[in-house]
């Protein structure tokens, strides 16, 4: 935790993009029907009402209706469907 804190301060001091330095995920929500997630680790669960995605800082939980993953590459995924909520769960705590 301490290390992350130092990194974050360093990044903001040097005004460097945090998604590169910290590996923070970038989530872009376009209207109610389109979500684009970058910088993630993998899918944990996928049904048409719930998608759970693992990111570096924790889980992202997307609920909605008729959710469909339009494409899925190593660093970006695009989800379409009626979005209801987006929640951040706790990340894996190693320490």
């Amino acid at each position, binding site marked *: 935790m301490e290390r992350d804190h130092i990194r974050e301060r360093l990044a903001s001091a040097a005004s460097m993009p945090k998604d590169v330095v910290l590996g923070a995920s970038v989530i872009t929500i376009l209207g109610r029907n389109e979500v684009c997630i970058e910088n993630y680790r*993998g*899918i944990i669960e*996928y049904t*048409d009402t719930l998608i759970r995605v693992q990111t570096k800082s924790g889980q992202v939980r997307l609920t909605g209706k008729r959710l*469909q993953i339009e*494409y*899925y*590459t*190593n660093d970006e995924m695009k989800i379409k469907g009626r979005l209801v909520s987006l929640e951040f769960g706790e990340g894996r705590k190693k320490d």
Partner: protein
Amino acid sequence: MIRSFLRWLRGYVKIRVEGYSPERFLNLCCFHHILIWELSPAGNAYEMYMSLSGFRKIRPFARKTRTRAVIIEKCGFPFFVKHYRRRKLLFAGIFFCIILLKAYSLFIWDIHFEGNEKWTDETLIEFLASNDITPFMLKSRVDCSGIVKDIRKEYNDIVWVSASVDGSRLKIQIKENEDTFTEETAEDDTPVDLIAGSNGVITGIVTRAGVPQVHVGDEVKAGDLLVSGRIDVLDDSGEVTGYQYQHSDADIYADTEMEYNDSMPLTYQEKIYDGKKRYRFYVNISGWELSAGTVKNRYPHADLTAWERQIKLGENFYLPLSYGYETAESYSFQKKKYTEEEIRQELTGRFEQFCRNLEEKGIQIRENSVKIHMDAASARASGILYLNQKIAEETDTEILTIERKEELK
């Protein structure tokens, strides 16, 4: 669009992944840069599209994650080829088509002109044909700079030409000389006199070359000498020792008179169509004619009309294929009488047209005494037109000019 076409070209499959942990399978695919699209859950399994090359790599992942990948759908070009591989004629056809396309693109199929107004496309095509430049010639035989040179040599008033081969079309751009003024001033050195073309009274003289022989107010008769192209060369004692000749040039205006006579009959025959028609449709393929119907008839009077169109490729590559139809339409005559009003309108219209024609030639109409007379058999418009016109020029164009050449002593 392009992306989906490329996908199709490389081939892709729709697979269904089911088993112990399909999510892990997805993450593995993702980690190994295998593109997945339109991923959708189907019960306990997932369905997704994957490129063919990606599909070939997933076997170890499937074993590792203890999942089973089943192909549901195969799309794309490689599968298309595999499916139709026994249809040799299809592939022969595609191959033949490519060959034909290549072969046909070796020829010029169309000649396109741009910028020509005075010289029509037809004239230029005829000229090019006389130089063996026609549609359906080999593209490699087209010599663009040669065409440009030929056109410039043949037509003096085309000031700029560019020829280029654009696909299988020969494009010729032309710039014509718009001010033909220089053309008119071309010097003609033959000695010429100007004489009067008609009787009249001179009202104005503008002489540019030659010695005028008349004055304003003079009455001249047709054939009288107006401007002499011969200049006497005198010696000190005033005797003529020789002559100099030149091409006379002058505008000489004179008041002239012209008689106008026009007549028309009081009755006329009107065509009455009785609706009887006969048709013949035909297709003509290089002399061979295929027709339906006939225009042979026993009508006492009939109009025979024909309409034909030749099929062409592009703008001017005519194929020996034409189609059209002929119609015979029966009619009979009925004798009818003009009303006085109609006669007046007709004769006035004709007279006005005559006056317009004169004015277009640059002749002024000062006055006219044309009146319409009617009697039992016919109607007449007659009278005298008082004009002001160039009389010298008229004789010049009528080739009544006299050339005199005398030996110098």
